[in-house]
């Protein structure tokens, strides 16, 4: 039976158990004189009653006691799985990074061009620093055989030159003798 349009919503609210006391009183007053609205409420209640499931049995409710335990176990398993996956993923990433570093073609870094300031500073270094730190080493080098392989056997230094050696020790005479050995 069709309910009055303005009371349809209130009938449903009451059947669903969500009606305010004021609306409930208003509907009650209306239904006292409206057979259609009384029948509509009866049909609505019956439809909801038939649609509802029966209450769970005691056995079903008892079985719910194990739900918490089951969920906890499943959550722990999921957590362990997540940790394992994270570890495996980290290992894979590390291995991939190592492989990339190993296989990546190595390039020599470009030579660094000295700045003008650095070049100037380099030129300003004393000559002793380029060859050796002491003047004695320079002297030994100057007296060494230019065709000798090594610098390991220096000419022993003598306090006073022997006769005839004085000319050899003069640099200009030494060069002349070297260029014109027959003279």
């Amino acid at each position: 039976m069709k309910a009055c349009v303005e009371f349809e919503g209130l009938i449903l609210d009451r059947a669903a158990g969500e009606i305010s006391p004021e609306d409930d009183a208003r509907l009650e007053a209306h239904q006292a004189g409206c057979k259609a609205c009384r029948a509509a409420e009866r049909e609505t209640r019956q439809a909801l009653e038939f649609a509802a499931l029966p209450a769970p049995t005691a056995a079903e409710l008892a079985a719910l006691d194990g739900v918490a335990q089951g969920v906890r176990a499943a959550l722990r398993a999921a957590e362990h799985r997540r940790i394992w996956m994270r570890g495996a993923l980290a290992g894979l990433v590390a291995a991939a990074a190592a492989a990339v570093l190993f296989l990546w073609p190595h390039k020599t870094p470009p030579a660094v061009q000295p700045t003008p300031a650095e070049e100037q500073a380099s030129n300003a270094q004393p000559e002793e620093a380029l060859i050796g730190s002491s003047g004695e080493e320079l002297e030994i080098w100057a007296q060494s055989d230019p065709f000798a392989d090594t610098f390991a056997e220096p000419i022993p230094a003598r306090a006073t030159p022997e006769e005839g050696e004085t000319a050899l020790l003069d640099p200009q005479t030494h060069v002349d003798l070297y260029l014109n050995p027959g003279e």
Partner: protein
Amino acid sequence: MGGERIGARGHLVPLPGADAQASDDALCRAFLAGSEAPFGELVRRHQALVYALVRRYAQRPEDARDLTQRAFLRAFEAARRALPRLSKAGEIPFKAWLARIAINLGKNHLRQATRWRPAPVAALESAPEPGPSAADALDRAEREKRTRAAVLELPRRQREVLTLRIDGGLAFAEIAQALGITANAAKVHFHHAVQRLKARMANEDAEEGRG
């Protein structure tokens, strides 16, 4: 807050005695922060609701129990994922998530089990009770079975609202939160669902020469 302590990760962890009074949000946050005690309270608080929602779709009570566990598992996983995104003021709508997850799981379960007859839990439980008239009881059982089958054939939103209301006993505001709609829209869907069921029942009554 008197019923809470600071947990290892700086979150508020309710004390065991305070669990029963704590909100779902507080319990959920405490559990995700590493406290075990609130977990049992959360499950105990909502397991009947979840079971009531999924048993309409389950073939056997064991299936319903399994679906209940899965619903909790998914809700906790969802909370774990959502927690970093939620501000401290933002509440975890744990009950709404659970309800939504439960009906989705139930619906998927039913879809996968199409070779079975739907709602056998209801069928098992609706055996006529001995009464003054066995014929009346049988007739009623038959009508209940048909009406429950009709519920599963309702349009999705109408079915969701109706089952959350009559199986889960949720208020329209809670249904609205679970489904992401307004309370008014939930009422409208409920109204349409009931009208459809009534119309179907009236047709069947007319076909059988009842009423």
